[in-house]
């Protein structure tokens, strides 16, 4: 239906999300499921890059985030920020617990064949190009410190503002900007060395 409301995607998304959040807080699992699935790709990627790019570990943690978010839903307040950022905070805290329980493993070796199912919506020719660059970049990312990796992934892959990243990581925005600058320098150096 071509009308102002349907064209005004941000407003439509906000109203729809408000309704889903209200329903989820009343115990509607379907509504909560829809919300979580909307943000799952970003949550998954955030975890994925911080657990050595291992799908199994990322999936386990993403499930943990689902359960923790459901249990904490009663404490979620709209005035405290967006639902998406709230989920990322839970993911961040789950990763802190993960690191506490597991010693950080050796830098993961990335398969030479990137599974096609993890790269969707890309043409076959583009997949080849993306894969080569992506593999190089992913190797370099994996060698970054966790702090650097976090700010790079949240800023560019998840397209977050410094304000949002500050809420997730608990760091100040000025500190994040400095961290971001150092992270890019470190990443460039790693890419050159690969």
């Amino acid at each position, binding site marked *: *239906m071509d*009308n102002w*409301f*349907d064209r*005004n995607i941000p407003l439509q998304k906000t*109203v729809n999300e*408000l*309704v889903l*959040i*209200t329903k989820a*807080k*009343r*115990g509607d*699992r*379907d509504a*909560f*499921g829809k919300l*979580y*699935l909307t943000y*799952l*790709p970003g949550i*998954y*990627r955030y975890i*994925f*890059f911080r657990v050595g790019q291992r*799908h199994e570990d*990322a*999936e386990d943690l*993403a*499930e943990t985030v*689902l*359960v923790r978010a*459901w*249990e904490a*839903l*009663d404490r979620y307040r*709209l*005035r405290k920020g967006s639902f998406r950022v709230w989920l990322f905070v839970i993911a961040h805290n789950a990763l802190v617990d993960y690191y506490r329980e597991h010693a950080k493993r050796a830098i993961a070796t990335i398969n030479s064949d990137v*599974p096609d*199912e*993890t*790269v*969707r*919506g*890309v043409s076959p020719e583009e997949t080849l190009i*993306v894969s080569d*660059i*992506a593999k190089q*970049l*992913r190797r370099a990312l994996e060698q970054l410190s966790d702090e650097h990796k976090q700010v*790079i*992934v949240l800023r*560019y*892959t*998840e*397209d977050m503002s410094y304000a949002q990243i500050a809420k997730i990581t608990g760091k100040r925005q000025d500190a994040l900007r400095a961290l971001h600058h150092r992270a*890019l320098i470190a*990443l*460039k150096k790693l*890419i050159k060395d690969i």
Partner: protein
Amino acid sequence: MNMEDRDIIAALKKLALIQPRKSFSARIEADVRQLPQTLQTSRISSWTLLPVAQIAIALVIFLFITSVGVVVASDRSNPGDILYPVKKAVESAQVAVASSPTARAILQIHIAGKRVREMKDVVDTNKNSQELDELSHEYEMHVDQSLAELDSASSSAATARENVVKALEKHEETLQTVKNEVPEDHQASIDRAIDASQKGQEAVQTHENSDHNNQPSQGSNASVQGVSSLEAKNENSQQSHDNGNQDHGASSDKSTHDQGNDKSQNNSEKKEK
């Protein structure tokens, strides 16, 4: 920023193409269905609802202040009209602030009735069938949502169920009239809506037959009456627009109850809460 930084950043953004494995998304859907019921699911306090209610009320007040007639006028709007999005936003806000499953059930059936009126208007003005199809889908969705709310309402919400059935009967009546005016190739949309109305009536009546000993409680009636006054306000704004098609059973004078739809009793889809 030099070229190198731009290339790296572009490549970083492309990492957003990485998605969870399809099998994992399915696993998450299964996990969601098994999430435990928590204390929060039994009752939500008004304080918890307050921020959402504040936003919803603020939206309505803002619209009221900007123009007293906007919200009222929007209620008469149809798909394609400039105020139609306002109408839908107000409907969403009303559902968000409704305090009980019974109230939400009545609201949803009231909104479903609006979709029926809109279908009639679309046909009267010979608009395209795509809108009919979308309205029919929305009608079906609101009926389903009303039934789902009734399912989670207490067994003493008999009056609400009765009102929902009456409303659905009215919808079916109007839809049959609309069907007679619609060209044959547009009738599938109307048939879908009629089917949804009939199935809704069966579902509620099946529920009533199994709970025929329950008496409506004071609380249930109070919430229904509260919504009835809301409907009365909306009805007043609709008087000049509506050619007598009323969908809120609370004010219906219809005393005869047609139980002649002897179709096989198919269970309605119960949405898990």
